[in-house]
């Protein structure tokens, strides 16, 4: 198979993830307790024999860059190839922030030109899936067209959320529409492309002159489809674009199903991530843990049901956590109850507080478009005072310096967001 180099787009703002992406890039959002979203794509790369990876960052990249370091957990710390971070930069030629996915690649034209590989693969850093790209690469070579797009079948009701492709019998993409209101097809573009490198260079140059911003989904793929130069590769495995809070929450708790669609426990193809230095998880005599994922470093003295605990979480005596996702180093105080809640890193729920209880029918007053399905969000390092009640569809965040929020109940759909945590 021809050598392929990957570019991972990891610069999106991810605004629809609300508080979770207020202080971190979307690819660095924790998933499944011990992983970050980017881990899946990086794992796929190295498993598929791609050992030269360029990561394009832009939005709050510190957490992301810190997570991937020199790429050691993915064996991408290499003499030749390996992992490189491409951040928007000032250069001799005009440079700017990345204005769209294809523009991000265009602005790194010098990298693209210097490569010697025949094909380049464009990936996204905010997808959760396990895929062997070798099948896709072989398909691309066989199909013989200069561009290939991986597509996946989505429910008909959801076609308006995706770029939808129509494909003829020979695998030629005949139509591509970004987020159509109605469509005959349910083949969604995964945002994963393989291009002939020389061809991509010429197309980017051509289109850059025509548009202010440049996006693969909006501009490049429709243009190539109109010229009949795109093949569609049908991927049948589990694939999820973490686009919204709801998809994040549902996909996370989906890991607790009897037979989860995402196979994390296959010893032969484990998802790779940075190792931790935490002791194994400790459960005391009074604890009761069921249907949950628990990471190293957790100390559980209370009840945990259908939840995901990242490393270093402490559940004190008499506390109860249900249908919730707790990020690293959270503490749930004695007797506190937490339900249907995502709690960001280092937050503390005071003793006997009740979080996430209420009527899911009243959407968030701050972000009704994202938060209307009955969960509550507690921001990074927020301290919820003991004894108060926080309803459902609530957004609660103190500031990073001083996390304490006022000692009063927060009703369904209400919010408290500290001064420098503008959403």
């Amino acid at each position: 198979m021809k050598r392929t180099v990957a570019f991972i787009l990891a610069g999106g703002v991810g605004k629809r993830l609300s508080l979770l992406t207020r202080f971190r890039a979307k690819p660095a959002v924790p998933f499944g307790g011990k992983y970050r979203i980017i881990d899946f794509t990086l794992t796929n790369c190295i498993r598929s024999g791609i050992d030269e990876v360029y990561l394009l960052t832009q939005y709050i990249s510190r957490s992301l860059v810190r997570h991937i370091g020199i790429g050691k957990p993915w064996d991408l710390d290499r003499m030749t190839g390996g992992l490189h971070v491409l951040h928007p930069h000032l250069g001799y030629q005009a440079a700017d922030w990345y204005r769209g996915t294809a523009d991000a690649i265009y602005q790194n034209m010098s990298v693209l030109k210097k490569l010697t590989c025949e094909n380049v693969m464009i990936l996204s850093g905010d997808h959760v899936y396990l895929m062997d790209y070798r099948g896709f690469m072989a398909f691309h070579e066989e199909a013989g067209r200069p561009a290939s797009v991986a597509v996946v079948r989505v429910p008909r009701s959801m076609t308006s959320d995706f770029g939808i492709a129509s494909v003829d019998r020979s695998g030629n993409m005949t139509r591509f529409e970004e987020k159509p209101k109605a469509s005959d097809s349910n083949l969604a573009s995964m945002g994963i492309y393989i291009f002939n490198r020389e061809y991509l260079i010429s197309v980017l140059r051509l289109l850059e002159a025509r548009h202010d911003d440049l996006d693969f989904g909006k501009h490049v793929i429709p243009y190539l489809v109109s010229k009949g130069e795109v093949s569609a590769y049908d991927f049948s495995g589990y694939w999820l674009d973490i686009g919204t809070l709801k998809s994040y929450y549902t996909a996370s708790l989906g890991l607790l199903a009897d037979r989860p669609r995402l196979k994390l426990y296959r010893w032969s193809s484990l998802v790779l991530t940075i190792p931790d230095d935490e002791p194994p998880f400790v459960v005391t005599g009074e604890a009761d843990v069921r249907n949950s994922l628990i990471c190293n470093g957790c100390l559980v003295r209370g009840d945990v049901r259908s939840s995901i605990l990242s490393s270093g979480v402490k559940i004190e005596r008499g506390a109860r956590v249900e249908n919730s996702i707790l990020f690293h180093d959270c503490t749930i105080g004695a007797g506190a109850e937490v339900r249907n809640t995502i709690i960001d890193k280092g937050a503390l729920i005071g003793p006997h507080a009740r979080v996430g209880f209420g009527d899911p029918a009243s959407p968030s007053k701050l972000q009704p478009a994202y938060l209307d399905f009955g969960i509550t969000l507690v921001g990074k390092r927020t301290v919820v005072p003991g004894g108060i009640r926080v309803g459902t569809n609530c957004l609660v965040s103190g500031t990073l310096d001083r996390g304490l929020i006022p000692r009063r109940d927060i009703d369904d759909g209400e919010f408290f967001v500290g001064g420098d945590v503008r959403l």
Partner: protein
Amino acid sequence: MKILTLILAGGTGTELSVLTRHRAKTAVPFGGRYRIIDFCLSNCVHSGLQEIAILAQYSPKSLIDHIGMGKPWDLDRKSGGIYILQPSHSGEAAQWYLGTADALYQNIDLIRNSKAEAILVLSGDQIYVMDYRPMLQYHGERGAAMTIAIKKVHPSQRSRFGMVRCSRDGLVTAFREKPTESTFRFASLGIYLFRRDFVLDTLGSGKRDIVFDIVMPLIKRNEVAAYEFDGYWEDIGSVSSYYRASLELLKNRLLITDPDWPIFTQGSGLPPARCAKDSRVSDSIIADGCIVKGKVTGSILFPGVMVEEGAIVEDSIIFPFCRIGSDARVSKSILDKFVVVAGGASVGAPPRRAHAKPTADRTGDIAVLGRGARVSPGAAVRAGTLVEPQTIVESRRRR
């Protein structure tokens, strides 16, 4: 003060029975995700020691795998770092390490070429938390040829250790190795700090043992200083002491959970531990990659252990990747890596009849199953039984 640290890791560890059949004692798993040597290595790292040689010779593969380049301890360094030294020959006579002092002597070039002022000799098979820096400082101030670490032990334990008598000014005046009875209150912890020039002068062929051939003669010359240590220190001398020290972690977990003194080790790379719908886990330590569908209580589960529906694991230590089948019961047992207990089998149950044959082994009433042993469906391994690695235990039930 620049220090060269040598960790003795060559013992056969026969006292740990089947647990050391295929691995060095220092590489025996401990505490849910660690190996015994991690405690010593973490002490070194926390004490700022950055040049460490491990002297190994018995089943070193497990140790070599575990240490790798020393990355988890940040010992993959350009200068110093960690390396494993096994007996080798220099074109002339070659032999195994004949004892602790001989192991040092065979590596005398390392000591000779080192710029260290002092040589710290440690045992890799002890579990303890110790900051070596105060001892190093004490040694520097005393200026003795040698300083040894000592600790007060209970009179009933004195026959297990090398016992030491000290003068009021901190000099060791007498040393008895494992005395049946002794009035000496301090045990030597096997932690020796030498002046480098002194080591070079003293080591030589025919001097095999650090205690008998080096420490004892030096005591006569009043050149051994004693440094008293009063923290946690455990020498795992038998399967039952291994079992006891392990399960003690359930009560005294600070040994592994102290945020100021983390124990460094290799990552397992496995997903988080998963407790299924009807799991019941309590009073246990559970490592990542475990899937618990049954009941686990008072136990330690290493990474990747599977406990099926209806299975019960109690008061047991389960090494990585064991599988406990549905409705099986494991009590008061140690299961080495890859042991499979099939559905309905039982391990560690007390014998049905009081006059059942007692096992004359050091494991007491703990059942120990060697690596890869398989207990067939419905079969029973009684309390205190020792099952050799890779053995298959069949069911004795008649049709």
